[in-house]
């Protein structure tokens, strides 16, 4: 089976005044198969969000290659990325910050379909349905970001990411701000959607238990490098690398 997302030798360095360049992501390679849930774990600052931003081309890579369904998107500019965003969507780490403070959640959720020219009534009906699936009543479409809680905002963000029926969904700590019950609800929703629509998830997470429960495969990131990858049970219960051992010990 061909991977929907393939990342080869992806690197991102930031220049620091007077010091050697700092590699936030250092020659990372992995593939995401259609319908797969791939977990990325790692401590704070290990480069998880940077990988997500590189794949969505919100920042430019220093080196390496990103392919989506066989198309090389590493060098695409501005407008050329618009069709790609129909396939890849992302849920941001900060739910509130990812909605325009001057626009309603509904505006934000419907924006992708609006740009595709879908009529207003149709896209609002879809937004309402998705929002309800994510556990929020439809009236939240009229709310502003500052009028909802972090968890509610997170659910709206998930609904927004699902609006344009993407193939790949990047979830950057998408469930971190939710309580355990809602977390479970959302994870079940994501699993259900995944089975229905053959979605592939890049599931960035701190919670090893969640990773063990839901992911098909997991990558352990440390200092921008992949230090271990494999089945969640293997990585979490029988870690090989020193860092993965420490990470597991710190949690359990």
């Amino acid at each position, binding site marked *: 089976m061909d991977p929907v997302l393939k990342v080869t030798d992806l690197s991102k360095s930031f220049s620091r005044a007077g010091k050697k360049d700092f590699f936030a992501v250092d020659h990372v390679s992995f593939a995401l198969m259609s319908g797969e849930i791939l977990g990325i774990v790692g401590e704070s600052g290990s480069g998880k969000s940077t990988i997500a931003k590189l794949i*969505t081309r*919100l920042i430019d890579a220093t080196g390496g290659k990103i392919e989506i369904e066989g198309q090389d998107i590493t060098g695409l500019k501005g407008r050329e990325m618009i069709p790609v965003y129909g396939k890849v969507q992302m849920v941001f780490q900060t739910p509130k910050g990812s909605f325009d*403070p001057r*626009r309603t959640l509904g505006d934000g959720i419907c924006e992708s379909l609006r740009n595709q020219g879908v009529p207003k009534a149709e896209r609002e009906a879809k937004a309402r349905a998705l929002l309800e699936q994510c556990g929020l009543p439809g009236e939240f479409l009229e709310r502003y970001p*500052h009028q909802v809680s972090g968890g509610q905002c997170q659910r709206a963000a998930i609904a*927004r990411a699902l609006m344009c029926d993407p193939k790949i969904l990047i979830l950057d700590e998408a469930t971190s701000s939710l309580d355990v019950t809602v977390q479970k609800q959302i994870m079940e929703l994501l699993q259900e959607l995944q089975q229905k629509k053959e979605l592939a998830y890049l599931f960035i997470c701190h919670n090893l238990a969640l990773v063990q429960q839901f992911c098909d495969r997991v990558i352990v990131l440390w200092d921008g490098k992949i230090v271990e990858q494999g089945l969640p049970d293997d990585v979490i219960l029988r870690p090989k690398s020193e860092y993965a051992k420490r990470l597991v010990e710190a949690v359990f």
Partner: protein
Amino acid sequence: MNRPVTVRVQKVKKNRIRTRLFFFLFLAVILVLVSFFADQIVPYDPYAQDLGLSRQPPSPAHFMGTDQYGRDVFSRVVVGAKASVFSTLVLVCVTSVFGTVTGTLCGYFGREIDSVVMRISDVCLAFPGLVFALAIAALLGGGMSNAVIALAVISWPKYARVARGQTLALKNSDFVAAAKLAGDNSAQMILRHILPNILGPILVTAMLDIGTMMMELAGLSFLGLGAQPPVAEWGNMMSGGRSMLQTYPWLVLSPGVAIFLTVVTFNLLGDTVRDYMDPKNSGS
């Protein structure tokens, strides 16, 4: 105010701000209307001289007295609003729109245009306003329109800077990234997400600038670089009457009070607009 406030408290606060906004907006609109219809509402011809009536103290007929040529001071103050308020509004509108557009584009697209435009704005900012106005007056001659041009040249960079800084900050925000993922092109991004979010600070800057610009224009006219006599303008009316401040104080006080009230009105309007635009106060 990180404490959660109830919707009711928010609503009461918002209503109070709205009442204040309407009050100052009402005053500002009156001022603007006076400046538009000055010629229709004056009781006397502001330029008709009558030396027999020279330097009359305030009386029921001449509510602010008359000046040394016997012209009705009240009529001149009203007509002066045309020069002061109207010129200031034109000046602030043009500079704020121009500055905002250039600043936003610079901040959003960056690269070469950004460096070039920002260096130009540095040059414009480096001129002391008065010196620059002197140079323009020397070059193009005195007069209200040249004073406006001089002030426009030195005041647009302020807006460009505010707009550019805000745009740069917004460009790194997650909601702009999310809009990019929703397939927004540059125009949609700027019109839907950038401009509405920077409009608040720009509007407040502009509102507070109205007062400053009015003072500067009056100052230039006072020095003889703006409106030229016999044109009635608050600055040059004060200049004309200043030697008689002790003996005929109404000549200076009338236009002075007019400037004061107008500047205070627009400054308070600016403050209120700032409160009103604050998303934290715009609940439900």
